[in-house]
């Protein structure tokens, strides 16, 4: 196989996630606005926000350390790499051997670790509140995510996403209870990880209720742009993950003809749109829960993922 086209497809995938991520966020916002009978901002508003923030000056607290300045880039890089590893429209890309679920969880975990540190770095009370809430959520979301990974690995026999996706698309899968549980758990984890309602409210102006936003309150300019972009990418990442693992149809292999690759890309965008609409509808229909109810909510994910894993030990066919 020629290396150049392979790399080109891999590169296309990396650029694609970068380009699509703000659009997905803009799309979810638009659908939510429409559901509330508002006109809502333009679909490309998130791109404009990023450009606006990049042009703005950075205002730093006097006591901000190097960690505070470096964190936005770390978060952006880690999230981008993680998002680019997930097969979006094609499997078997050049770097797909690295597309290991555990690696992705680790990348996101590192990003969160640095964000929580940066939140506490300048010593404002909101940063501290945000960091403590974020870590409380993470302490349940991460084990749940790992258990989901175990379930999938037990079913598909690998933690590598290309293999998992290929297995899930094959007729060998059948109807499995454990996979259903994993899907629900993954959706819950995705909602919590992306700071969506009912766990957090991405649109709030109430500093006391914030989780993610409270940690980034002190950021401005290009630093904020990086963090915002990272959260767009994270949403895209989870949507891609859900669609790659649970709706793998339409994925093409990397060596396919360009027309097929294009078809794969169109299918992918369609999946994003469907997931985006579902997310918007869900968020419109539900109020945010009390901070102390979040562990219950995530506990459901943890229990389902655990049950899914256990079921697979009881029976290979469940």
């Amino acid at each position: 196989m020629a290396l150049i086209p392979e790399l080109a497809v891999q590169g296309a995938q990396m650029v694609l996630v970068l380009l699509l991520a703000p659009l997905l966020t803009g799309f979810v916002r638009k659908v939510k606005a429409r559901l509330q009978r508002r006109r809502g901002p333009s679909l490309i508003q998130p791109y404009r926000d990023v450009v606006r923030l990049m042009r703005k000056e950075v205002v730093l607290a006097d006591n901000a350390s190097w960690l505070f300045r470096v964190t936005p880039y770390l978060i952006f890089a880690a999230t981008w790499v993680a998002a680019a590893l997930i097969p979006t429209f094609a499997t078997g890309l050049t770097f797909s051997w690295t597309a290991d679920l555990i690696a992705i969880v680790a990348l996101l975990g590192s990003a969160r670790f640095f964000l929580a540190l940066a939140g506490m770095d300048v010593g404002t009370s909101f940063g501290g509140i945000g960091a403590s809430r974020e870590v409380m959520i993470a302490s349940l979301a991460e084990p749940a995510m790992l258990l989901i990974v175990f379930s999938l690995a037990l079913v598909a026999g690998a933690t590598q996403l290309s293999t998992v996706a290929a297995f899930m698309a094959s007729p060998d899968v059948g109807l499995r209870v454990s996979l259903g549980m994993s899907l629900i758990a993954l959706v819950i984890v995705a909602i919590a990880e992306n700071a969506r309602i009912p766990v957090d409210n991405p649109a709030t102006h109430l500093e006391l209720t914030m989780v993610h936003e409270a940690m980034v309150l002190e950021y401005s300019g290009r630093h904020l742009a990086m963090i915002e972009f990272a959260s767009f990418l994270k949403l895209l990442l989870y949507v891609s993950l859900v669609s790659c693992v649970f709706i793998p149809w339409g994925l093409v292999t990397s060596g396919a003809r360009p027309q097929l690759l294009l078809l794969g890309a169109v299918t992918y965008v369609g999946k994003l749109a469907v997931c985006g609409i579902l997310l918007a509808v869900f968020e419109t229909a539900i109020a945010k829960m009390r901070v102390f109810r979040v562990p219950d909510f995530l506990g459901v994910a943890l229990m389902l993922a655990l049950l899914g894993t256990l079921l697979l030990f009881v029976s290979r066919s469940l």
Partner: protein
Amino acid sequence: MSKRKMPGLTDLIEAGRPVEYHAPSKRALVAPKVWNLAVEQLAEGRWSLLGLWGEPDTVHMALLDEVRDIGVISLQCPGGRYPSVGQRHPPALRLERAASDLFGLSPQGLPDTRRWLDHGQWGVSHPLATAPQAPAAASSYRFLAAEGESLHQIPVGPVHAGIIEPGHFRFTASGETIVRLEERLGYVHKGIEGLMKGSPVDRAARLAGRTSGDSTVAYSLAFARAAEAALGVDVPRRAVWLRALMAELERLANHLGDIGAICNDAAFAIMLAHCGALREHVLRASDAAFGHRLMRDRVVPGGAASDLSEEGTVAIRSVVAEIRQRFPHLVELYDNTASLQDRTVATGRLKGELARQYAAGGYVGRASGRDFDARRSPGYPPYDELAFDVPVLQEGDVNARVWIRIREVEQSLSLVEQILERLPAGPIHVDIAGPNGPREGMAVVEGFRGDILAWLRIGEAGMVERCHLRDPSWFQWPLLETAIEGNIVADFPLCNKSFNCSYSGHDL
């Protein structure tokens, strides 16, 4: 002594030296002994404090007794000193601190002597005293302490992440649980009372309408009624009814906005979108009917400033029909969304006894079982001719405050319909040039937040000598501090919005 018959407010006032002209209730200069007797009645919870305000050498206290008589007692303060009310009746604390900042009166025995409205930024201290002094040396504000292991403080505001009024909140929390909340207000002090001093009645009326923007009709009405009482003016019937129409439209718009905003603070944005649209339609109908969205300066001493046209009537009727059709669905949505109910039920509970002690007006008091509505008692026209209920609930949580608003929206819709049905014809304004000489008037008017008290004295040449406007928030802000105790930090915005106290009206 214990068998002694409890003196009523009227007995107390008769025991004093009544002033020449004070309408509709009475005011008397009393001796310190009588003053203390009144404070005792307050402290024992038999009477309610309606207001406390100063003058350079006098302090006044408006009271409501158990038979719902209203009156004012005044005490001369030789050397600016008088026995503190706040030391025995805490609701007076902040009012006394404010009077001390403005007039230099020093309440003897007041447990809290920190400045309240004066943040050391005025360039002068005691601006309304006979001889204002140079500003006192700036000192940092000492927040009340909370002791315990692993407590931490969270300062919030006065500049907030959202576009709201400025106020500082100091939380002491143990993890997420709030141990103590202390408010610091006064950031939007505009000097309304100072500006009113010596100004003609019409200018003072305009100032009163700018005390708190969302209650401009209620404030204008309170001021106008007080001025009319002082001058003995009879307002034409049509004007009285038009004013009530405006007041109900204002209540409708604000309650609709609040219901949506409370739900939005629980991240249930769809309620805000729908209620916001309804509120906007009420404002537009008000604009069509009276030429101003918030109806500012439409209530004037002597009547109303603009008459209701045929198109205006049609606009109001159509918005009432729209709300009648759409609002029940929103109420159903509120009631049937379990995730939303989970946030509002049992959150920020205010005890009934505290609501009574503080004489909390409006939805704050009525959601905690305090059955008081100034439209009914003391009552003012045209409400005596209109049929309406005053909803009262006992729970005192955020949910109860939402439900009081929902019920009041329904009552206001019915009131608007009744008024439009029976609006009398005739003139809408009379001249208010009245007799000279010191004449005093007082009015209690029900705004959407609760009862607003206006007291004024008109002096020689018809100029306002002293005017005091007491926002309902004076007695609601302190209750927010207690309602939030034991709740979690993240629930504060929801509780705060359910109180929706005015910063501007409180800071004057």
